[in-house]
């Protein structure tokens, strides 16, 4: 039980994607290992940022704001093995584009993740 509670802390977008071995199947060792790596590097990055942020004038100018989208793009192809997944991804993109001008930032992402509910429809 405590082991599970601790392991749950390491489940995040990235470790979840890396740990997925087949649609709907996860390798728990891979997932926890990836989570540990992310946790350590994330903390280290935060420390570096807190201490050294003043050195960098404008992070946008370094192009770092594409780093996150690029990371998720790199994680995306293994998720797109099935046609349903490709359709879900496209629908999510359209929904986000439609919602970004209309609602506060953050809401489009929540709304688009609801696209997965289409999976409830019987095949």
């Amino acid at each position: 039980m405590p082991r599970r509670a601790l392991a749950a802390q390491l489940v995040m977008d990235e470790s979840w994607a890396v740990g997925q071995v087949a649609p709907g199947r996860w390798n728990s060792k891979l997932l926890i290992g990836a989570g540990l790596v992310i946790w350590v590097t994330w903390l280290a990055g935060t420390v570096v940022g807190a201490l050294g942020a003043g050195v960098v004038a404008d992070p946008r100018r370094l192009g770092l704001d594409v780093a996150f989208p690029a990371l998720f793009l790199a994680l995306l192809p293994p998720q797109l093995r099935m046609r349903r997944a490709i359709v879900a991804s496209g629908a999510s993109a359209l929904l986000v584009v439609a919602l970004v001008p209309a609602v506060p930032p953050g809401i489009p992402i929540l709304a688009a993740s609801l696209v997965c509910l289409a999976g409830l429809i019987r095949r």
Partner: protein
Amino acid sequence: MSEIWLVLGLLAVSTFALRAVGPVLLGGRELPARAADAVELLPPALFTALIVPQVFGSGEVLALDERAAGLAAAGVAVALRAPASLVLPAAVLPTRPCERSRRRAFDGHETLWRPGASGILRWWRSTAKSLPTMRRAPNPIDCASPVAGWSSCGHKSCSAASCHPRRGSSSMSGAGAGFTRCRWRRRATRSTCSIRSSCTSSKCSHRRASSKCRLPARGSVTRPYFHQPNELRGELEDGGFRVEVIVAVEGPGSFRPELDGWLEDVERCDVLLSAIRRVESEPAVLGASAHVLAFGRK
């Protein structure tokens, strides 16, 4: 300080609990088949939703800029099956040169292209955004007018606000140019500005390269040099500031008739302010304002 740590502590505990509660209560059980089908679709939908706004969104506006080039480069790297450690540099590398050339070509405008400024998307954006305003406003027609009042004077007749030798000039050059009925056409215009036959015979030719506002010379009011709002950005950046926003002070909102009444009435004031917020940082509007205010950080 202690309050901050208290909040941090509470947030940490609640995040820990939220993450733990699912696996602890439900761990070890199989998901029902239908739920598994839905969960399967969550990663593709969520990852796409995380990518798109970070690349094509700029606050509440869609924007196409150098981030798209970075994403395209990342896409090529992914298609070539490059490892993630190469995908990230591939994405980051082209953005800086692309950003530079954008700034050179578009002169500090925030984005290369805003769908918000064209066709269906503009309609969708204005409809979607005016919904809450329409509900709150005492009178739906009135509610549209703080902006409509401005835009009709900006586009139909040629008033002070309508002539921008470049997209954004100072109010004085706008007002001065208004005398000559010089009309700014948005598309053709980054380089040209035509004069109507009813006005003086002077011709105005605004070249892209010029950073000064040239008023039509003969027959017009004055011929001095006026600062332009985008020059303020340059000056602040020269001073080591990172400019976050340039806004109009006494901009379109101040053209509203019965302004005092609007400001006193709490509900209408809200409507007016939300209308102003939508246009106050628009480069085309800055020139029509009495003052501009730049906000930057060092």
